[in-house]
């Protein structure tokens, strides 16, 4: 959402299809700063944001880090830290380290995916303007909301006209 956003208008819709249609329509009319809120994932709305998730890449990097840490730790411990000669067997018996490395890889990837999700989803967040929308508590149950940010009042009237054509259940101006 643009930093210069000064006005926010919320609109509630009956279902995901109406919300999606409204989002497409406003987008086509040139309104930027649209944010849709739904009680369950609606992939088409996600596609509208035009952004891809970086979480898989973050998880992959986490896994790589886990691999390096797990293998490095074991090689250090068994070659340098505490070399133990068992009947002349090699100290760097890496196949025996793989199960532990595997656990390190999965553990780090899960941790990275979780943190990656929390951060890229802009969480944790104490407050957000969306929570000011009337009836927004239903967005986590059966409410479908669209939030439109405007940089100034220039298109305020046309936004309301455009929204009215999308048959919303309710429209409200949010406090700045």
């Amino acid at each position, binding site marked *: 959402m643009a930093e210069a956003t000064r006005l926010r208008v919320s609109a509630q819709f009956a279902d995901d299809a109406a919300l999606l249609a409204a989002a497409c329509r406003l987008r086509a009319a040139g309104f930027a700063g649209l*944010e849709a809120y*739904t009680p369950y994932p609606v992939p088409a*709305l*996600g596609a509208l944001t035009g952004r891809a998730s970086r979480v898989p890449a973050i998880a992959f990097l986490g896994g790589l880090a886990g691999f390096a840490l797990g293998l490095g730790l074991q090689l250090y411990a068994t070659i340098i830290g505490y070399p133990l000669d068992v009947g002349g067997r090699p100290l760097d018996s890496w196949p025996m380290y793989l199960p532990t490395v595997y656990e390190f890889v999965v553990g780090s990837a*899960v941790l990275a995916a979780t943190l990656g*999700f929390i951060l890229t989803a802009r969480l944790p967040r104490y407050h957000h303007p969306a929570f000011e929308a009337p009836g927004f*508590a239903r967005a*986590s149950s*059966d409410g479908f909301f669209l939030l439109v940010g405007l940089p100034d009042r220039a298109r305020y009237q046309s936004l309301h006209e455009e929204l009215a054509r999308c048959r919303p259940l309710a429209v409200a101006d949010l406090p700045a």
Partner: protein
Amino acid sequence: MSDRLIAPGESFASVTDRVTGIVFDPPHRLGWWLLMLLALALVGLGTLAIGWLFVAGIGIWGINIPVAWGFAISNYVWWIGMASGGTMISSLFHVMRADWRSSVNRLAETMTLFAAACAGIFPILHLGRPYYFYWLFPYPNVMGLWPQFRSPLLWDFFAILTYVLCSMLFWYVGLIPDLATMRDRAPSRAGQIVYGLLALGWRGSALQWLRYQSAYRVLAGLMGPLVISVHSIVGLDFAGGLTPGWHSTQYPPFFVFGAVLSGFGIVLMLAIPLRRAYRLEALITPRHLDILARLTLLSSLAVGYAYAMDLFTAFYGDSRYDHDLALDRLIGHYAPLFWITILCNLLLPQALWWRRVRQDTRLLLVIGASVVLGMWCERILIVLQSLAHEYEPSRWGLFHPTFWDWATLLGTIGLFLAGLLLLLRLLPALSLFELRDLLARRGAAHG
């Protein structure tokens, strides 16, 4: 197909009300308290047993030489097996995009959490000097020692640690959108604050859902292989020993089969009373139970195959010790355990071939319980019988469980039950947003 996964007539609001109602306006308060008191009494007994163990040492248990692994290890394997089965339901069927998972995944994951916690207690108690358990951590210390990374027992330590942490994260990430629902519906200010903090400010924006779904897919994809590795490593704890009966290459998959079987069994055992007590029949439908029953049957056949191969390789092989052990399993001192295992894990579940059995919740409950009991017998049999019947007759001996062995086992059952009961009253028992998603897609299919 998804039609039958939710009863007709349910809406977003009715699903939300039904599930959050269990927390905010709980029915059966008296029954809940009675069960909770029972669970807490068991926890008290277990705490007493563990306290006495710390004072007196593991001599209070029935273990000795030659049977130095007893209840602690088999209970550990049993609990971690049920935990693994729960994660398997949740992660594998998410990756396979099986719609039916939505109503049971939260239950399975919550069950996993407490089963894994119960499992985690035992290896530490089993240490002669439990206060040195942290020696398993690889940390620089003044003794200049490092753990033995080539031992399956240490692999197991890392596997369990990773598994417990990852299960918690997987469970929590799966809960975040539902915590937001709880925040928005909590009647009390305290509830709003606590659920609000836990929900991290979730709003359900399109961008958040996008990232949420991709993260959840990644987590589910990682959890499945993790579970298989965890229980395979548990199998390697045994296979890594030279003891007859344990030293077998089939142990890792054999243990995974058993884990999955007991996981399905315990989920059946929990889902059936839950749906009945809290009127969730519309959400946990006969179709869910039917699928769980079929999966129980499938995994029962898988363990049956493993039992058959276990005996086959023993007799096909050339080791008289293996012959002797296999024969001892069939007719020796521990044979009753073996035959109970066969009855509970293999024979009784065959009833699930019949549709009428799969639709009868009482029979399903009995079969679920029989499988859980059967898996306990199998684990204790594996641990005891091989140790009691090693190579030389001079090393033969029996294990007699003491009061404290049973008290510790009962204590963990109490802990499991108490944990589940507590979370039932604090968190949504079913995944709300996945049910909504299911409803939305069903609507789309009809419209």
